[in-house]
């Protein structure tokens, strides 16, 4: 759905995706210093992260899944 995980072999930890995403999907993994899609449900499929990524580490698909709505928990 939407943003797939960042390719950890290609990612160079430049943080471009973190500062680019308008909905704050990414964080750098504190241990590996590579980017993670920490909040993939926020992805709006605008492809800006992919467009700006200098090493082609990001893959995005066209669809999103609806989260399950529960009563209160």
């Amino acid at each position, binding site marked *: 759905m939407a943003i797939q995980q960042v390719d950890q072999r290609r990612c160079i930890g430049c943080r471009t995706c973190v500062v680019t995403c308008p909905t704050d999907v990414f964080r750098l993994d504190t241990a590996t210093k590579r980017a993670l899609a920490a909040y993939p449900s*926020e992805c709006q*499929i605008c492809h800006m992260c992919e467009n700006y990524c200098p090493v082609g580490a990001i893959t995005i698909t066209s*669809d999103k899944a609806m*989260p399950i709505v529960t009563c209160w928990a």
Partner: protein
Amino acid sequence: MTRRDFLKAAGVSVAALSAAKLFGGFAENVAVAATEDMPLSRTGADVLVIGGGYAGVFAAVAARAKGLDVVLVDKGTVGRSGMTPWANGFNVFDKAKGDDRDEMIAAVAASSEYVNNRDWLDAQFDDSKARWEELVEWGILDAKLRHPHLALRDKLVESGVRLLERTAVTDLLTKDGAVVGAIGFSLDGEETVAVVAKATVLCAGAGSYKASGFPIQGLTFDGDAMAYRAGATISGKEFTDFHFTSAAHPADCWAQWEPMWVSGVSQTHGAQGGGMLLSQAFSVHAGEKVTSGSPGGGPPGGGGASSGAGGAPPAGGGPPGGGAGGASGGPPGTSSGPQVLGAATGLGIHKAEGVWPADLTGAGGVPGLWAAGDALASMLCGASYAGVGLSSSGSAVQGARAGEAAAAFAADAAAPALSAAALAEARGAVLAPRTRESGFSPNWVLQLLQNTMFPYYVLYVKKPDRLQPALDQVMFLQEHMVPLLVASDVHELKLAHETASMLLNAEMKLRASLFRTESRGTHYREDHPARDDKNWLAWVLLQRRADGGMGLRKQAIPEAWKPDQSTPYETRYPQRFPDELAFLGLE
């Protein structure tokens, strides 16, 4: 190790935990923080600009040019946040290129259905060419940049504007009824951020209810919400922007917006319409076919007789370089293949919702506050959008004016003295969801809001017996759930404040829609399916009452701007609403 150190060290695992519970309802806050875990970073400034799109950048550059200390705060990063990255048309008024003042005044009034503000259009005539020339000087056409809007950020850096990016502002700071800065938090660490400023320019853009298929999910009406809470008047909320998305992949922004991204920025001229077709909503309501296989971005269903731009005469000039609609000539954000209505649900008309201006600098009616761009209800456009490129250039023109006025005010003002106690109280409000032990997750509440506001029969085809129950639901969510929102990290704290802003905006939209008892432009009331020029050549103004409730009032447009009542109704308003002529006894 303090709790804050622990959270820092465990940043990713905390994030993963949050993601796992984002859609839960009432739950324990899995990583509750104490206020002291998010220390306060306080800075002062002459002028604070909130938002880094066209309006914000022009405001900051104009204020900085006066030699003042300017801070610009952006929820994302400049050139990549809000709607700015997707702008590819910039409307310029240039007599040398054949633009005609009277023709454009008539065209914008017709497509706006007469509730536009002609003084702000005059500002476009006066300023838009100079703003374009500045953009060119800043490098907006420079092919060496990876994207033209990165030139905006370069200009801020070169000018010496201090940037606080990835910083979410959640409230304006006030003292003795005046705005004295703003407070929020950083998305890159557990830190509260306050900027105490002599003048504040709100350029936080528009918003939607995070609807799919439109690259606006980072914008959530934050500016309107914080200005309203600070006492400003808000307008334009009953008018609705229409956008479609792909029926096959409704969440896919890129499929719709790629042409806007790759096209670069070019001038547009005249007021060629470009507003969406309300007739599509009627079609849905009548159970008629509403999708279209027509390629190239033409309106689904092939248009038909009801065109939002129907009254606009052809504009002079013509967009060089193919114009902003891309090769298709269709509205922005439309791909080939079957389309469905509903992208950007909640969005109003560009330049026609937000803070009500007290003058032609965008003064916000509260001392110390200015607004510009999509955060300002300039009514450059009215009940529907008047022309591709007016949004970007309108933001630039208004931003520069607001920045200059804010700078002139700040140059003579003393630095505000905000007490530690006042700052502590504001900080407490910012961090409340983060420090709450248990409550409702923002995304769960957002889903309830979306379920209430998304159906076409609430904001597109309106009737009191549907608007009122939606309002009841929105009020319940505001009163019962907003005070109980929880956030287990800064990302979720952003969502919590965004959700509160969206709920307040939904209340504004529903109340304004109930209040305007007529149909006009993109506001269609089934029970009043015609324009009512006698009563509604007017704007709807919203302002917080002393008792905390939302007050509504009407302000008539100037007499000189009203359409000629001797012109037959059908000619005055070429766009038809269903059953309109029968309602008026004209058929």
